């Protein structure tokens, strides 16, 4: 395989990993409105 093909594969993998980390982090930090005394799992998120 050509060397530049390896470079492209590595760059694609790095971009995918960074994108996945940012997406997971954004989801972890998403805020909401928590109501107490409510059945667990209620709500869609």
């Amino acid at each position, binding site marked *: 395989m050509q060397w530049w093909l390896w470079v492209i594969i590595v760059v694609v993998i790095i971009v995918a990993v960074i994108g996945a980390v*940012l997406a997971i*982090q954004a989801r*972890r*930090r998403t*805020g*909401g*409105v*928590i*109501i*107490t*005394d*409510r*059945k*667990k*799992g*209620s*709500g*869609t*998120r």
Partner: protein
Amino acid sequence: MSILLRSSEINRLPVVTFAGEDIAQIKDIVYAARGGQVGGFTLNGRGLFAGPLKTALPWEKVVGVGPDAVIIRGEDAFTPVESLLAAVQSGEPAAGDILGSQVLTDDGAALGVVVDVVIEVADGGGAAQADVVGYEIDPAEGVGRGTNRMLIPLPDTLSASGEHLMVPAAAREFVTDDLAGFGAAVDDFRAHLRGGPR
């Protein structure tokens, strides 16, 4: 004197101390199913890669809530998240996010899905009280309002346990489109429930 805020205006606000330190960011607003009183906030750490914190901010430790920050005296205002939830709960130890939940009237009609929550903050910040007074909802097809979001007032004796959020059928008569007239709509709705004139 009080002001009305959407929960989305408070979420993500930085938490700043009197010393000027920016030490956390608001994540969730926690309120009691019985009565609708805001008990406090869960927190995110500062910075893109910081996750949710294990500490929370009780409402009574908040000095002020403004458009750009939540002000506290110092970092000692924080308490463990479990302590905050336990303090706000009155019954079974459980909690859930209401954004995305369906709103039903007590005569069985679906009004729509909650996209935001309206909070009334009595002027004076932490010395006063904050209560959930309404929901902003994406209307259901049967409501006949197209896709225009609407604000629906809640009774002062709010009860919101269970899979759906229940409101009195009379709430439909007091729906508004924006926050400008919503305070009066909440007062009128609650007076109506108490048997007073509209």
